[in-house]
């Protein structure tokens, strides 16, 4: 039956709702489009309202359907985007590495998300921080990787990655990392429900190193 199953999936995939947040112009829509259709439009529009796309992703042999919500980045459109935070499984906090301001605003985005997403208190939510536009020239960079990692550590976010929607670097990885991160937290939550232990789970899957930074570091 093995190869038979290979021809088509048996069960319905897990649907994960992913919200991409960040200042206007950091490349949220581009990230989404790169991930979903592997396309990059130099001249893409700024997003008005919300848009979303679906994409399947395979992690550890399981297939997940990501429902990726792309929102308008301007602060003023808050009322429009916040209703969509509810029920999210993953939140991607995005900034552009050549835009310090967008990096500073991560805090605002995180707070806004936590406030409106109705996340239970004391529950660690799977955030992932994404520094987009890693393709820019070194002299245009305004946010260093160290700064990103520091901020993540301060905010207890254990996943971060620098990507480029333009040259497709790390985009797939970013979404994969996000799902893995979600999985980890999900497993942890399950475990906590049974018994609170501080034993180390040796069976836990270590994510590959390609995700650049904190994942392994803060996993301990």
């Amino acid at each position, binding site marked *: 039956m093995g*190869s038979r199953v290979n021809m088509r999936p048996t069960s319905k995939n897990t649907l994960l709702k992913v919200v991409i947040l960040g200042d206007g112009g950091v490349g949220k829509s581009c990230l989404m489009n790169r991930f979903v259709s592997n396309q990059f439009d130099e*001249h893409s529009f*700024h*997003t008005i309202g919300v848009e979303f796309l679906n994409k399947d992703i*395979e992690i550890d042999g399981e297939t997940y359907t990501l*429902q990726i919500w792309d929102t308008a980045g301007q602060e*003023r459109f808050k009322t429009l985007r916040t209703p969509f935070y509810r029920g999210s499984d993953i939140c991607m906090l995005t900034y552009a590495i050549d835009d310090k301001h967008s990096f500073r605003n991560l805090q605002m985005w995180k707070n806004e998300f936590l406030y409106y997403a109705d996340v239970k208190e004391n529950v660690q939510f799977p955030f992932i921080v994404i520094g987009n536009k890693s393709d820019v020239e070194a002299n245009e960079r*305004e*946010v260093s990787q160290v700064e990103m990692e520091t901020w993540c550590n301060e905010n207890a976010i254990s996943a971060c990655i620098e990507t480029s929607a333009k040259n497709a670097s790390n985009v797939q990885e970013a979404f994969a990392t996000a799902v893995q991160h979600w999985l980890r937290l999900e497993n942890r939550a399950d475990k906590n429900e049974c018994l609170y232990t501080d034993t180390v789970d040796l069976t836990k899957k270590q994510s590959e190193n390609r995700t650049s930074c904190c994942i392994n570091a803060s996993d301990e």
Partner: protein
Amino acid sequence: MSLNNENEYKGRLIAAVKKEVKQVMEESVTRKFVHEESGSVTSLCAAVEACLSQGLRRRALGLFKTSSTTALLHKIAKHSREAAIISKKVQEIENSDPNRRSSSSSESLTKPTLKKNHSLPSTPLPKYLWIRLALFEKQLAKIIDYLVSNANKYYDKDALVADPDYGSILSSLLVGPCALDYSRTKTPDHFWTDPPADELVQRHRISSSHSTPPPVRRPILNFRRSLNASSEDSITNRTTTQHLAKDYVESLHQNSRATLLFGKNNVLVLPVNADVSQPMPGYLSLHQTASGLTIKWTPNQLMNGFTDEVQDKSVFWDYALQVRLDEIVYVHCHQDSETGGTVILVGQDGVQRPPIHFPKGGHMLAFLSCIETGLLPRGRLDPPLWSQRCSNKRRRPLPALSETEETTKDYVFRIADNTTHKDILKQNELMDTHIALPPKSRVQLPSTSTSSESSTKSFSIDQNAPDSPPSICIQAVCDSMKRQIISRAFYGWLAYCRHLSTVRTHLSGLVNSKIVNGEGASDGITVEKWNELCTDGVVTDHAELYRLTYFGGIAHDLRKDLWPYLLGHYKFGSTTQQRMELSEETKQAYENTMSEWLAVEAIVRQRDKETQANAIAKLSSESMSGEQVPAQIQRDLSNEVFEDNISDEDSGPNVEEEDKPERTRQNTIKYDSDPEQDEKEERYQQQQLKDFIHNVIVTNASVDMGNLGSEIEANGHRNDLDVVAEENSSLDTCIETHGLASPAMSTCVSPASSNGGVYSQELLETFGLNLHRIEKDVQRCDRNYWYFTVENLDKLRNVMCTYVWEHLDIGYMQGMCDLVAPLLVIFNDESLTYACFCHLMERMVENFPNGNAMDCHFANMRSLIQILDSEMYELMHSHGDYTHFYFCYRWFLLDFKRELVYPDVYATWEVIWAAQHVASSHFVLFLALALLETYRDIILSNCMDFTDIIKFFNEMAERHNAAAVLSLARDLVLQLQLLIENK
């Protein structure tokens, strides 16, 4: 076949493979993966199969019976490791499917791929199975390589594979595709459940067999019609469609022939003819038609849309249940504390139907009570479900069936027939004919209604449930029927009145009461018409101008002249001379404003440069920690502010400033200074000094002269200022922007012309922030449209900045650029665009987040849909949250600008502007409605929920047929006007 022909044929075969390889490779590049069931994979396999079959020595190899190439594979498996792997896999798959022993690639070409009584709930094996598998397993090239090198064994001399050139070409062609990753994550299942908008439109086109451009089909919007019965339109459609599946799914909805009495999702049934061991979830529904009750159960797999091709889903059609209740004699109920209960229907022949397992939550009881009501008056449940013995009005179900724990777990009902009395029958028929008359509104009809709305079931149990045997007095029955009929007629009438009053109170404001005739206006304003309208440069007949625009639009070349009228910039009756003066004024004012903000922009830019320099310096200092850091940067690090101009660097570190790093924590204003402006700079300096001295209001702003040419004097001033500033740092007050108030007469756009304004920190921040946003968005605005070259984007930016400068309280909001863009393309004139944009924004600004028009739009949309398309309304209602109408947000915010291509945007906008004077000042609502109605059948037949609709319309952007949508929108306005007028 001659040698030539032979060669040509081989060439064609190879060319076909080449083409398909290219296709697959392209797909992999654009999508990053190729789906296993992609059409291009199948075509590639077909092409390969054709090559391999050609010249195969069938007879010599004993391969005449089955598919030759599959057999060939098995044959060479002995010698080739790669072939062995694939051969094994093929056998495994074939064996797991007893129905098809020798699935062969070429056979499955001609045979229908689906058998009705499939034993496995899975698809038939795909075509070209072994080639497919070999491709996915990346072995195909090697296998063919083996065949090519051993061609003499298996192929005729002149076979393609045996050909010295073609053979190696074939195997090397397939190296590429064998290197790809094939994904199965997106299966046709997903394709069907999560199809792109294109696919949906396509499917719709296929399924609606009538009229060529289906999206433009008139929706059912006629109010009276929807009062009487449900969509007649869609019924006629249904009869024309040949698609059983579609029909079936649609038959599950409420329609005019059948009333839906009960519907419940995820009811478990184990189909008799199914090969599955577990009961499957499905949708259970109870329908009432003129001839009686029908119970239907449909597997969930079929509930999302329908298929018009033979798909693997089709096997589920066999599982679907359809039971006519008049064939049923007994209803067995089994109560179980674990589940919600099970119902087994037993027929007249004593045969049991598959058990129906209800989920928890009283659904079984609800189902039974719907049956009981549905049976009336011709039949009934015996014993009655509802205990009539209680004297109080509240009916109580039989204790056994309330989901509380009870000793009696099982119950059997008999379906008894009341219709022994012919009179009752007759009466019923009589009633039926009467019943068709009173209008009823489907809108307010709850779908599981047990009320008196449908044509045959109608008796409320309280009065009529014949508890006693059929020997009841006929007279009593007749009386109660009379009452029923009268009360139904009354309620129908009442509902109708309420409905109309809703229409009138809520919607009358949406359209103008006067209906303007569109006769002869369908050509719009042509050049000839315009010459008639505009005599000696004066336009007087504005009503006619609006009318023509509304019904027919404006010729493109005239838009430049006419739009300012429509937007209210030019006044009707104005002379050419007056308009020229106006334009001149507009231009002057525009340039003045521009010079004001350009000055501020210069300051903002300078600050930005420094901030950025700081950030970069900080970064580089991080990376080269330990190395020598230039003093300049060191200082920047210590106080994170835009202190010194980087251009200072060549003049060496400024000692004086280094002395006071703390001071510079205060916000600093800096003027960009070009050498040529030294004098003016100095003037600012002086003036500002005076300000500081005269006003005790001292800001925390200090002025920095980047230019050493201003000499020590300036520095000295600054020093003083700094001290003052230090002392007063608690004061947050800002210097008045006095420079702004005075009129700047110069048209020079140099920053220096802005009267040396001193700008408050707050102003700088605000405008700076806006500037950044504008910049970001302008760069992203319509870059794909020919007009927007760098030069013209600058114009767009100027207009935008000018607007924001003049309306700082509103500020820049995303979407404004989109509104400026079409105006700019038409006018190609900054000041005129600006003026018209201001007029446009008077209406549009309310749509932006700080206004409240959007909520009104949504509320109005809701009412309109409720009135004009009840079916759609029901769908939206059933998916609770999508009544928020978020999917219309962008439509309203940008007047559909992003939904349409540029030429259509022009045409749409001018109609919107003209509409308020002709038909409706809320024309956008009707446009939105028209857009929704254009795709209503797709939305309905796919049961789209909130997210589906958002996705659908996002994908459909710029692909609508604007002319059709516009004309539908005009029709809708007219319909509502008639509805309101027709009292």
